[in-house]
C-alpha cells in the first residue's frame, strides 16, 4: 500500500539516523512510541536532507516528540506549535515542516491556530496525537473525550460534547484530512507518506493510546477481535467494506449511510465508492462518529477523508513578492528613506 519514495540527494538515511541521544520519557506502553517509530521509518523515504526537516510541537506528552527526532525542532509553548510553524514556513518555504500536537494542545488551547492554519493552507503536516485525554497534566478530560468521561477534573463525568476533529477540520476548509492509529504501523506509515505528499496543510488525526490515563480508549478499532468490525479502512476508488471477511459494506440510502451485508444478498455494485475528492461524501463519512456502544452504529473510518488542491499560503506570499519585484524592481533603501517629498536645507 505504502508507496516508497527513494532518497534523491545521494545520502542514504535510515530510521536510525533520526534517533537522538535523548532518553525517551514516555510511559512504557504509550502509543507515542509507535508513532515515533513510524515517523522515523518514513522520514528516510522522503528524499529530503535531514537538515531541511523541522518538527515543531506545543506542550503535552506528545509534544516531546522533537527531542527524539534528529532534525531541527522546537518544543514551543502550549497550543502554539501551529502558529510557530506558520511563521517558520512563511519565512522558509523550502523546509519540510511537521507539527506534532495533542488533542489538548491542538484542539483546546490551540484550536484557533489550528483552524486558521487549515484555512490558510500552509504546506505542512499536522500530526494530531489524539488520546482523548490530557496526558502530561495527569489525566483531565480533553475536548475529544467522549461525554460522561470520568477524569481528574470530572469526577462525576464530563458534560462537554466533544469535537469531531475530522468534521472540524473539514469545516475549516482543510485540504487534506485523514485519520490513522498508533497500532496499525503500515496504515500509519501510509498516512504519514500521504500527508507529506499533499501540497498544502495535511491534518492527520492519529488515535493514540494513553495507557496510563485513558487506556483502551480505542481498543475497538485496534484490537484484533473487534478491529475488522469496527474500523472501516477507506481506499480511494474502492467500495466501503469492512468486517472479518470484508462481508459488510456501506450503502447510501439517499443521504443516509446504511450497513449492508454482502453475504446476505447485498451487491458490491451498490456500495458507496470512496472518493476522497468529494467534499459531500467526506462530510457524510466524517460523521461516522457514534460511540461503539450505540446500537447500530457505523464503523469508524480510517484513511483519507478528503483531499483537494488549493494554492498554499507560502507560495502565494512568495509569488506576491516576486510579482511586486518584477513590476517595480527590487526596493532601493535610499529611495524608501527619502519618501515622496523632501526638501534641502543648505
Amino acid at each position, binding site marked *: 500500500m505504502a508507496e516508497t519514495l527513494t532518497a534523491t540527494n545521494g545520502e542514504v538515511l535510515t530510521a536510525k539516523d533520526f534517533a537522538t541521544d535523548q532518553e525517551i520519557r514516555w510511559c512504557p506502553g504509550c502509543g507515542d512510541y509507535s508513532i515515533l517509530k513510524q515517523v522515523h521509518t518514513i522520514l528516510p523515504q522522503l528524499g529530503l536532507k535531514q537538515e531541511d526537516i523541522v518538527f515543531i510541537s506545543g506542550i503535552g506528552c506528545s509534544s516531546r516528540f522533537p527531542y527524539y527526532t534528529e532534525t531541527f525542532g522546537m518544543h514551543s509553548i502550549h497550543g502554539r506549535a501551529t502558529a510557530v510553524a506558520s511563521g517558520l514556513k512563511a519565512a522558509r518555504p523550502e523546509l519540510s515542516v511537521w507539527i506534532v500536537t495533542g488533542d489538548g494542545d491542538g484542539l483546546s488551547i490551540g484550536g484557533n491556530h489550528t483552524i486558521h492554519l487549515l484555512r490558510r493552507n500552509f504546506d505542512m503536516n499536522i500530526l494530531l496525537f489524539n488520546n482523548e485525554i490530557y496526558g502530561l497534566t495527569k489525566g483531565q478530560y480533553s475536548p475529544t473525550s467522549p461525554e460522561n468521561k470520568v477524569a481528574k477534573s470530572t469526577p462525576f463525568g464530563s458534560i462537554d460534547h466533544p469535537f469531531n476533529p475530522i468534521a472540524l477540520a473539514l469545516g475549516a476548509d482543510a485540504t487534506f484530512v485523514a485519520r490513522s492509529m498508533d497500532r496499525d504501523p503500515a496504515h500509519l506509515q501510509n498516512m504519514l507518506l500521504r500527508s507529506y505528499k499533499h501540497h498544502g496543510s495535511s491534518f492527520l488525526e492519529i488515535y493514540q493510546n494513553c495507557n496510563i490515563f485513558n487506556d483502551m480508549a480505542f481498543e475497538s478499532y485496534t484490537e484484533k477481535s473487534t478491529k475488522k468490525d469496527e474500523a472501516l479502512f477507506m481506499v480511494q476508488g474502492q467500495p466501503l467494506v469492512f468486517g472479518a471477511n470484508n462481508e459488510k459494506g456501506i450503502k447510501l440510502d439517499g443521504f443516509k449511510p446504511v450497513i449492508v451485508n454482502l453475504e446476505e444478498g447485498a451487491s458490491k455494485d451498490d456500495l458507496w465508492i470512496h472518493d476522497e475528492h468529494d467534499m459531500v461524501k467526506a462530510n457524510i463519512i466524517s460523521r461516522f462518529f457514534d460511540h461503539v456502544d450505540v446500537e447500530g452504529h457505523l464503523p469508524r473510518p480510517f484513511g483519507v477523508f478528503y483531499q483537494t488542491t488549493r494554492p498554499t499560503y507560502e507560495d502565494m506570499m512568495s509569488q506576491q513578492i516576486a510579482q511586486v519585484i518584477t513590476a517595480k524592481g527590487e526596493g532601493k533603501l535610499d529611495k524608501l528613506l527619502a*519618501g515622496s517629498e523632501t526638501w534641502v536645507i543648505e
Partner: protein
Amino acid sequence: MAEQTTITELEEAVIKFAGDSGDGMQLTGTQFTTNAALFGNDLGTFPDFPAEIRAPIGTVAGVSGFQLHFGSKEIFTPGDICDVLVVMNSAALKSNIRNIKKGGIIIANTSGFDAKNLKLANMTSNAMEDDSLGNYQVIKMDVTRMTREALTDIQLGMKEKDRCKNMFVLGFLYWMFNREMDNTIKFLTDKFGKKPEVLEANLRVLKAGYSYGDTTETFTTRYKVEKAVMPAGTYRSIMGNQATALGLVAASKKSGLPLFLGSYPITPASDILHDLAKYKSFGVKTFQAEDEIAAITSAIGASFGGSLAVTTTSGPGMALKTEALGLATVLEIPLVIINVQRGGPSTGLPTKTEQADLFQAYYGRNGECPIPIVAAQSPSDCFNAVYEACRISVQHMIPVILLTDGYIANGAEPWRFPKESELEEIKIEFAKPMAEGEKFMPYARDEKLSRPWAIPGTKGLEHRIGGLEKQNITGNISYEPENHEFMVKLREEKVERIANYIPEQKIDSGPSKGKLLVLGWGGTYGALKAAVRELNEEGFAVAHAHLRHMRPFPKNLGEVLHNYDKVLIPEINNGQLVKIIRDKYFIDALAYNKIQGLPFFKSELMDKIREILK
C-alpha cells in the same frame, strides 16, 4: 484695497486646525506643514483623531484636529497650546477651547455655529454671540457661504462644493502667515489632475481664502516666521510609525536578514503593519495573524528560520504576548517586540498616549525573565531606536522590547534622513555547518554570552530547543537545581552585558553636575528638552538626560545621577521608571506624573522644575 497690514515677526507659532471628521482638517494641516517645511522652518505636528471611526457629524466625539508648531528656532514638540485655533464648527470650539493661549486668535467658521451645530455640540449659548470668547481675538468668517460663492458658476453638487471649505481656511492662513502657496497648488494639481472641475474648485477656493485676507479690512496683522537654522541636508517629514517601519527595513537590509513581521492590528500600532505590507519589493513578509499570540509565535518561528523577526502591538496585545516572551527568552533567539503604548489599563483610552507599559516590559512575565528594553524619543527617532533594537537582538541573540507611544507614533517632524551608506552595518553570522562527527552545541556562548544562531537547512546543526530549562552549552533539558540558578543568573548577566555594547549616558542639555537633573525616557523628550533649554536660558541650573536604553541602563547612569543634588523623573504614567531608579541606584528620585492621555506641556514642566529649584 484694505488698509496697510502690519507684519509681525514670530520666532514660533502653534496653529491648530479643528473641525468635523469630514472637514478635511488632517489634509489642511499637512499642507500647511509641508509648506512650512519646504520653507525651512523647524516643526512638529500632532494629529488628534476621534476615538470613533465616524462619530455623528457635528458632535464633540467627531472632532478631528491637527496641531502644528513651527518656528525659526529649534522646535521639539507640537506645542503646548495654540496661538491660532481654526474651528470649523461648534464642537471643534468646544473641545479645543482650553488648548488656546489667552489672547490667541480663534478663526471660526460662523456657519458651524447655527442652531443645529450648537445643539449637536451640546452648547447652550452661541459663542459667536455671547461674550465667552472675550479673552481671545476672534475672527469670524462664514467659510461655507464664501466657499459656495466662490463656486457659483462651477458645475458641482453642493456637497462637493462644500468639500472645498478647508481650502478657504488654508488660503486664509497662508495669507496670514505670509506664505507662497505653490506646494498646495502642485498637490491639488497632482491629486485632481483627472477631475478638472474639482481641481478648479479647490484652487479657486484656496485663492479666495487668500484674497479674503488681502481684501478684508478687519485684519490688520500678518505674521512672519523665518527659516530656522537647521543642519544642512535633505529632509523629509516623518511620523513615528513610518520611521519604525523604515528602521526595520533598513535593519533588514544592513544585516542581510529577511524581514518577517507577525502582527495583529491594534491602534495605534497598526500603521507599522500597513507600511511594511507595502514594502514587498524589499522582500518583507508581513503576516496578519489571527491574534497577538499567533503574531509573536509566528515571529518566533521565523526567527528560528533565520529572519529578522518582529512583532508589533499595543498594550492589551502586549499582555497577550507575555507567555511567548518567556519562550523567546529561554530559546535565546532574536526577536523585536514593538509596543506602541496607549492609555490603559485594559482597553483604556485606545487613541490616547501613555507611558504606562514600562513595568509590563520590565517585569510582566512569569519567572525571572529579563528582556532588554529600548525606547524611542521622537517621531524620527523611532528609526534609530528600532534599528538599535534590531542590532541588539540579532547580535546578542535575545528578544528586545521597543517602547514607542501613540504620541510619537502619530506625531510628525522633519527628518534629515540618512543614506543607506551612512548606516552602520549590523554584522551577524549564522552558525556554520559542522564537520562530520562533530557535535553542535546550541547553547555554547561567546563573550557577549550569546549562543549560535543555527538555522534549519544547515548541515549537521540539527538541534532541538524549547521552553523547559536548558543546560548551558548543550541546550539539553535540565532539572538540575544548580543549573537553573546558573541559567537564571546567566540570562540576567547576558542582558546586563549589553551595557558593554551601548554608549554611555549623555547629558542632553544643561550642566553636567548641579542641583537638578531631569531624567526622562521615551516620547517626553521634546517637552523635557524644550522646558530645560528655556530654563537654562533663564539661568536655572537644571540638566536634562534622556534614556534610550531602559534595560540595561548605560553603565555610567548611577554616576550621572549622583552628580546632581536632586533627580526629577517626569513620566506620562503613575511613576514607573522612578521606582526602578529608586530601587536600583538607591537615590530618592522625585516623580512628576501626568496621566491624562496627553503629552507634557513645556509650561507645566517648567513650573514644576522652578518649584523644585525654589
